[in-house]
């Protein structure tokens, strides 16, 4: 990597005070040295750029000029380490009415057979397996 590039990138975008504040929200964090603080800023910068780039790619695929939340969600899903920690934190997608309609028609198709009337002259098979109530018990010959 060229030195100029490194020098340009060596100044992270985020105010160190705010980054430190966010880190300290975790009560388990004791002390953080300046190196670590610097690197957190740098890596967050890189992460955000990565996320922005991937989201923009998704938007382009869908021929949209405005990057939206759905594009971001897709981008997150596509990168395993990111989706592992981030997917649950993203706002829930809005429930679509189409999905609900689909499940209703499926239910209509798979109506239980038991509801249908048995053809004339036949007996339902489950009657063989019913516990004897009015029927006489089966006799066993003990000889």
């Amino acid at each position: 990597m060229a030195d100029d590039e490194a020098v340009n990138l060596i100044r992270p975008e985020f105010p160190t005070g705010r980054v430190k504040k966010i880190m300290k929200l975790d009560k388990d964090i004791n002390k953080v040295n300046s190196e670590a603080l610097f690197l957190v800023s740098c890596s967050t910068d890189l992460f955000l750029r990565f996320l922005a780039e991937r989201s923009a790619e998704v938007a382009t695929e869908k021929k949209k000029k405005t990057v939206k939340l759905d594009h971001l969600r897709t981008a997150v899903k596509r990168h395993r380490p990111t989706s592992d920690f981030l997917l649950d934190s993203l706002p829930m997608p809005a429930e679509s009415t189409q999905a609900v309609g689909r499940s209703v028609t499926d239910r209509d198709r798979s109506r239980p057979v038991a509801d249908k009337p048995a053809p004339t002259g036949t007996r339902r098979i489950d009657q063989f397996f019913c516990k004897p109530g009015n029927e006489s018990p089966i006799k066993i010959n003990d000889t």
Partner: protein
Amino acid sequence: MAGEQDRLLPIANVGRIMKQILPPGAKISKEAKQTMQECATEFISFVTGEASDKCHKENRKTMNGDDMCWALTALGFDNYADAIVRYLHKYREAEREKAIQNKATCPQDKDEESSEDKRGHPPQQTDEAPTPVLEFSVKKGDKS
């Protein structure tokens, strides 16, 4: 609530980075930008937490740069880990130079390094004697 914003990275910084990355003419919805802000903040907490766990396990109280590098790799962010290791070296180099410069402001007598040449003669003084100042005398007077 204004207090909530303190727990997030400033949206202005987030927006600036996004503008650099997105193709010209592309826009980002307000909701997406705010979510990016939250994602970046979440990333900080996530990686810091991992690095902090390592410190605890090793009975150290202060998180350092190496812990950060380790955490990134452990969490699968190999693509950043390489760059971050380079940044760490650059940072340490810059810190060293700063320390040297600070020392230079208080000059100390340094021992001259004597390295005899192969013939065993004493080293030639590289510092030449100062060149004699040429004096110009400006002739005043009439042109003749």
